[in-house]
């Protein structure tokens, strides 16, 4: 497998890293906003992709509010949103669909952002928090809470503790972020395997009713979210989003390799730790809401990368695409086998599975001599 992230050209790197003087023309395809000493380069394509994704996301969200066991016309959905119209429509939209839609937005954005961060750090598209075992840690802890292993925290809190624990153990045994965080990844896979075994053990030992109660925490669903966890995720995303954007420049330089990044003034070790921490934080908060829906961390950034220009790291686009995937997947899960709901984790896995295979196959083809 070759490096799977698309690599920008070297001259892009120089341009991005070079001090941009007052009279330097903006790179092609960019707008430059200047105000005194400060200036901002806005890439037209990134902006366009962002707006496109946002528009599709809003359209999908409208469909989400309209469709279900009780279908509404778009006009009906809008008036129900405002609290007008008949009681049932208002109840269905305001109490059932809207909170769930918000949870889908937030978890999708958080998973995908976390995925994009970690993929960029490891320079590998498969290196998402879910694949390297952080979701497994969260699952093991929340299942332990459901089956009642003498722990007092609620499953969402335990999911967060689990994600943090898995990440901390991994970080500890890998002794920090080495080159590309590879040790971290392999150690994570190993630790994840242990947590996976523990989850299987817990589930195999409890009776089927308890196993059922733990089931949402093993596949991921938006049906059983807790409002506290959603609030926590919203706050976390509001905090981590800007931090991630602030790291974007370092991230885009780190893609060129350690030497280049260091030469351009990136403090590699510190940046790596920061990126890892952000990624783990976002994953932990999202898992606390929806359980392990790790596939979104793979699909979201993938969509973003195929749309956005190869110049930057598509953080915003990833978050938007992740939210979109989550909304569409949950909508599908609600409609497909109604009145039985398919958990969103299953839908993303079934869609994401073939996608994953495709990535693996395509990459293999590209590498073969």
């Amino acid at each position, binding site marked *: 497998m070759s490096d799977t992230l698309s690599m920008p050209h070297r001259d892009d790197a120089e341009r991005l890293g070079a001090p941009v003087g007052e009279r330097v023309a903006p790179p092609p395809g960019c707008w430059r906003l200047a105000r005194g000493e400060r200036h901002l380069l806005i890439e037209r394509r990134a902006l366009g992709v962002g707006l496109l994704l946002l528009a599709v996301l809003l359209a999908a969200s409208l469909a989400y509010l309209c469709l279900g066991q009780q279908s509404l016309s778009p006009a009906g959905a809008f008036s129900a949103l405002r609290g007008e119209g008949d009681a049932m429509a208002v109840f269905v939209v305001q109490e059932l669909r809207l909170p769930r839609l918000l949870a889908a937005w937030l978890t999708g954005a958080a998973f995908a952002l976390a995925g994009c961060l970690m993929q960029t750090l490891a320079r590998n598209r498969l290196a998402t928090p879910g694949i390297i075992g952080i979701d497994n840690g969260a699952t093991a802890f929340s299942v332990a809470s459901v089956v009642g292993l003498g722990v007092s925290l609620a499953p969402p809190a335990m999911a967060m503790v689990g994600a943090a624990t898995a990440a901390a153990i991994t970080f500890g045994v890998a002794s920090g972020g080495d080159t590309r965080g590879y040790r971290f990844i392999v150690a994570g*896979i190993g630790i994840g395997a242990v947590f996976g075994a523990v989850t299987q*053990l817990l589930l195999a030992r409890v009776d089927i009713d308890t196993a059922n109660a733990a089931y949402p925490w093993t596949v991921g669903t938006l049906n059983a979210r807790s409002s506290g966890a959603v609030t926590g995720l919203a706050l976390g995303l509001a905090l981590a989003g800007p931090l991630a954007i602030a790291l974007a420049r370092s991230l885009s330089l780190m893609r060129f390799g350690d030497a280049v990044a260091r030469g351009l003034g990136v403090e590699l070790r510190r940046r790596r730790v920061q990126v890892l921490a952000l990624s783990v934080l976002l994953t932990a908060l999202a898992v606390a809401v929806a359980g392990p829906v790790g596939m979104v961390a793979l699909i979201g950034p993938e969509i973003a990368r195929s749309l956005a220009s190869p110049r930057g790291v598509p953080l915003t686009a990833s978050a938007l695409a992740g939210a979109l995937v989550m909304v569409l997947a949950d909508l599908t899960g609600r409609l497909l086998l109604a009145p039985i709901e398919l958990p969103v984790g299953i839908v993303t896995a079934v869609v994401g599975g073939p996608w994953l295979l495709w990535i693996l196959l395509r990459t293999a083809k590209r590498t073969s001599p």
Partner: protein
Amino acid sequence: MSKATTVNTEPRPSARLSRVVLTLSGLLVLAALASLLWGAGEVGPARALAALAGHGDEEARFVVGTLRLPRTLIGIAVGLALGVAGALLQAVSRNPLAEPGLLGVSAGAAFAVAVALWLGASAATLRVAVAQLGALVGCVGVMSVVRLRGLGDDPVRLVLAGAAFSALLASLTSLLLLFDQRTADEIRFWVVGSLAGRRLDDLVAVLPSLALALAVTGLIARPLAALALGERVASGLGHRPGRVRALVVVAVALLVGGATAIAGPIAFVGLVVPFAARALAGPDIRRTLWLCLPLGPLMVLAADVVSRLVVAPSELPLGVLTALVGAPVLVAVVRARRLPTL
């Protein structure tokens, strides 16, 4: 990289190697004895020993002869298969992390069996065939996807691809669980590898394919060692790298599929055993394979005896125990200053 690795092209099974193999075989006999003497039940070592000597009470004779003896034999077969499969996979991919469990080969076998259970299969022989087919698909899939040749210098990518592949199969298994919970209840117990309650019939059904795989292994050990020197060297010595790789895939599929069919997925044995073998005997695949023969069963039996004793009167699934042993070894491999290549 690996081309620089010094491989003794004309090794004689040295005196040291035979000493190590003998010592390990002795330990294996002890482990097998322990497996016959200790269990989760009330038949303790004294009664079991009496039963072995031919004069114990009826209960002890039953427990030792009908429960523990088949279980021990199955443990030996599973350990052998997984250890050798790991060594082969690592040699051909020149990657110390290439473990059947980590690469998704076991997951392929487990998924195939889950599908078969879901479709209503229950016959033991069918299960064996299905698991081996699943392992073959998993093996071919992972190998063709990651193009082993290019991975000599990047073991981590292979493992990542395997982890992603395993995650994919795990989610598909969840899908089965969702649609048919009655089968799910059986799968739920089956996806944790264990030697408990497995029948001797299952072992008998698997034995021919295990024997075939070991015979193939014997044939390709030499070309594999040559391949470790590089493609050109191997071709120059008259071997065909493509054919060797294909044979490795078949052997690994037969071994892992067979082991999974009897005992369920048991991770990390294929990592720990070749790791220990290389530590004892150096990187030459021919020596490693010799050591894997006693080491694999030794690890599985020791883990199984522990699994019976820690939570008696119940038992801990074997797969959990091997994961607990294996993860630190995995980390140790990665923590080595540079990832060693084979």
